């Protein structure tokens, strides 16, 4: 399509009281403006959530405009301030994605400002015309193909995942942290539905998305049922049927990942990298950063900065004498896409990452994120993405160095002489039960002088999931689960809860922020990643 013929499609969310009225006035005043805009009336700009904007981009909108009342004039007092907050957050995310600034705009337009509405549209259409069509636009004939996700039938899935071996004994259900709380859900009931031939029922069952994939069930199943794998694959059938469960944050994270998968833009994911860190284009070790640059805009309110973990991990690697390669165009590993049934997006991401890594010619990949690690290690080969690299979690690397090279740490400087900092440890599902790595992080914790590890009541393979996985199932039960887990951590009398998973930390911090109506007991404890604890305990470079 030649640029001259390109007519952008702009989606405008206009608030009922001001902006939409302004558009109305523009019309009745016979003010000409380009017909490229599709106005969607909302009661207040404050209700325009990030996922609406990213959703519009996914649908192929070339530009998105959010228009509301001027600050101070909002019909609902402060709705437009919320709009601003959400919009800024979204812009930071689209910024990392590399989407052009001009495509997504926010403008305050009062009722009387009909001409301003027209002018805004005119300007936006001009600018977007210059940028060209949105790369997220799919030709119509490809849109249907997007739905052809899963090549499997329910029968295939039952065979592949050992689900046919279910004894119907129910042992899984009281081990399932969700089933214990939500009595309308249980692994064995879901399996029962699939086996007895209620194939369709299970696909449309909202409870299909309750599973955390934490593996508490399969660890003890006397049959050979791999329930998380079964559930993951059935979700792909559900996805094809248009079911997506009730994702957290309105599905925004999933939307971002889908955009990332199809994006031709150059990401701005390495803004955090500065001269304090050493990387090398020649290294045969890759440090996989994954999607951590994307989370900070979203989770700032909880005090969580995912990049803290990334930075600390890189510092640790440098300290260990590794100046790793960092790829400026790597993408999300695809974990969340896969676990919500979006196999197509997962494959896209996996293909991209695999190609990039192969071209980079590295021999080893180090992860700070257990989900990335697990996905590369267990899922990529399943879908034919072979990497021929050694994969390792940073805790494993540290444990190795402690054992083989006698790596030592110094005690935390603020400690009063003679006292020990009590810490406790949350085994992330993806590192623990999925990969069997329980000892490495503990070895690291024990090697830090002045630190005492006190185990929670449920630890190692008994560890309880942080309550949400793949941003899919954040509900009352997850909040309850999280709170109980935090109480368990408190009961150890540890000062700090250490995890080695950014997601666990995110979810715990969110629970402590106590958003939502479920006012359970207020638990507060410091939550920190293992990498951050270690980075403070690294001996000074001069000692080497």
């Amino acid at each position, binding site marked *: 399509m030649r640029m001259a013929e390109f007519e952008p499609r702009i989606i405008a969310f206009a608030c009922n009281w001001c902006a939409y009225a302004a558009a109305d006035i523009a019309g009745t005043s016979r003010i000409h403006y380009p017909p490229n805009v599709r106005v969607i009336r909302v009661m207040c700009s404050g209700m325009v959530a990030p996922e609406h904007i990213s959703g519009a981009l996914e649908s192929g909108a070339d530009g998105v405009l959010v228009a509301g009342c001027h600050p101070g004039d909002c019909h609902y007092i402060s709705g437009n301030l919320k709009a601003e907050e959400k919009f800024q957050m979204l812009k930071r995310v689209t910024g990392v994605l590399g989407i052009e600034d001009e495509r997504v705009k926010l403008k305050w337009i009062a009722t009387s400002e009909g001409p301003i509405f027209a002018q805004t549209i005119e300007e936006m259409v001009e600018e977007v015309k210059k940028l060209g069509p949105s790369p997220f636009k799919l030709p119509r004939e490809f849109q249907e193909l997007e739905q052809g996700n899963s090549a499997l039938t329910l029968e295939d899935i039952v065979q592949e995942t050992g689900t046919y071996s279910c004894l119907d004994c*129910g042992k899984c259900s009281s081990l399932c942290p969700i089933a214990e709380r939500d009595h309308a859900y249980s692994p064995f009931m879901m399996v029962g539905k699939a086996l007895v031939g209620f194939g369709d029922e299970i696909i449309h069952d909202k409870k299909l998305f309750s599973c955390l994939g934490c593996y508490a069930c399969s660890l*003890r199943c*006397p049959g050979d049922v791999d329930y998380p794998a079964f559930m993951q694959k059935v979700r792909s059938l559900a996805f094809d049927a248009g079911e997506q469960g009730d994702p957290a944050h309105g599905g925004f994270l999933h939307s971002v990942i889908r955009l990332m998968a199809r994006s031709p833009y150059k990401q701005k994911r390495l803004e955090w990298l500065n001269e304090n860190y050493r990387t090398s284009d020649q290294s045969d070790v890759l440090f996989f950063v994954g999607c951590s640059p994307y989370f900070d805009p979203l989770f700032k309110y909880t005090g969580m900065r995912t990049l803290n973990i990334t930075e600390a991990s890189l510092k640790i690697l440098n300290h260990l004498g590794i100046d790793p390669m960092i790829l400026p165009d790597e993408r999300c590993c695809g974990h969340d896409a896969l676990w919500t049934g979006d196999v197509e997006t997962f494959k896209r991401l996996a293909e991209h990452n695999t190609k990039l890594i192969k071209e980079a010619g590295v021999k080893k990949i180090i992860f700070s994120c257990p989900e990335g690690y697990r996905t590369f290690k267990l899922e990529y080969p399943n879908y034919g993405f072979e990497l021929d690299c050694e994969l390792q979690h940073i805790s494993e690397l540290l444990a190795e160095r402690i054992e083989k090279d006698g790596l030592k740490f110094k005690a935390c400087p603020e400690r009063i002489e003679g006292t020990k900092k009590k810490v406790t440890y949350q085994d992330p599902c993806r590192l623990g039960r999925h990969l069997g790595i329980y000892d490495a992080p503990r070895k690291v914790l024990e090697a830090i002088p002045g630190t005492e590890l006190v185990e929670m009541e449920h630890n190692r393979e008994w560890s309880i999931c942080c309550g949400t996985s793949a941003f899919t199932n954040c509900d009352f039960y997850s909040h309850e689960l999280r709170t109980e887990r935090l109480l368990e951590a408190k009961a150890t009398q540890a000062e700090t809860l250490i995890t080695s998973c950014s997601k666990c930390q995110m979810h715990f911090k969110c629970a402590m922020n106590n958003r939502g109506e479920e006012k359970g007991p207020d638990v507060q404890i410091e939550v920190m990643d293992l990498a951050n604890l270690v980075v403070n305990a690294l001996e000074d470079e001069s000692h080497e």
Partner: protein
Amino acid sequence: MNNSVLVIGGGVAGIQASFDLAEMGFKVYLVEKSPSIGGRMAQLDKTFPTNDCSICILAPKMADCNDHPNIEVLTYSEVKEVTGGAGDFKVKVLKKARLVDEKKCTGCGECTEKCPIKVPDEFNMGLGTRKAAYLYFLQAIPRVALIDQAHCVRITRGPTKDGKPRCGVCLDVCQAGAIDFEQKDEELELNVGAMVVAIGFDPYDPSPLTEYGYGRFKNVVTAMEFERVICASGPTQGHLKRLSQDGRDPKRIAFVQCAGSRDVKHNKYCAAVCCMHATKEAILSREHDPEVQSFVFYTDIRASGKGFQDYVARAEREYGVTYIRGRVSKIDEDSDENPVVHYTDTLAGEVETMQVDLVVLATCLVPRKGAPELARILGIQVDENKFFQSATFSPTESGVPGIFLCGYCQSPKDIPESVTEASAAAMKAAELFNQGQFP
């Protein structure tokens, strides 16, 4: 061709096989590793489905076996080496030293009373104690004491500083002068025409099932331990008591089935007898205490023998046993050391918890630890679960001519089946010998 037969294993199957062979005129050597014949059946309180006193029906058989002119009972003995073939096996048997002269000992029990050393009692599954000088159990056959060389201080600690032998209390009190610290292990060479293997089973240690807390929680016990507790000859004289500090009477008992059986992560097979023995134990608990409520958590109820289904129905109707279909997921403990059972009632579709006073794990039953080694000595095969391998349509045949199998060591089965198979194995052994040529 001689007409002697070796029976390895002195449990109910071995005893039955020995009898059948002896009655046919064969000379039988009954070799038993432990100090007495009787085996697992001697450890049970009652047997299903009749609730007969186990030792009461077994002990007369044990006594007759010992008295039979054609049977030579060799207890505290092990088969060490086998050469030759059917019709002419040369067997080296190690007869371990009891340090007690079998011909002189009257089984009076004085030495066991006066011995100062206490040791955990294996016959009572480690609950309760015995002495270093002991009788294996109350009804032991042969009724001869023995001294545990691993714990007797005269042996383990050697002479005192002055060079005098230590202790010797048993020597002093034995009126028959049967104690003999000079006694040595004996190696016997037997020449037999055929062998019958009947070494039975061991209970599976449920410690790897960490979800059940065995070893961590005092009030989670195995079925075999429970049998010893309710048995009058056991460590609590038959009082149904908890083993935790408070030692109070349990009123709510959970029987957890398939603990380590029908489980790909432990033992894939079904142990065959647990559904029935749990029913029995639940019935007996109510007989011990009319206030007891028993709950059996099952995967399936396997009650396929004669009278078995009726037995289970009786348990529900007359003894108030509640059967819940759901394999227990995990067991916690509350602050009073009461086990809390987490399960799914699969018929109601409900995820539940239940606080009880005592949990009895129906652990899987596995071939004896020594089975693979014995298989090597005899030249027979074990399967993937360590049961002795046999042909599908001739289960008493081991594949090696002249060596026959019966009982649990061949595959899971109950007492009636073991005894039947023992007679079958005896007959197969007899077939080998010329018809009608009895001495």
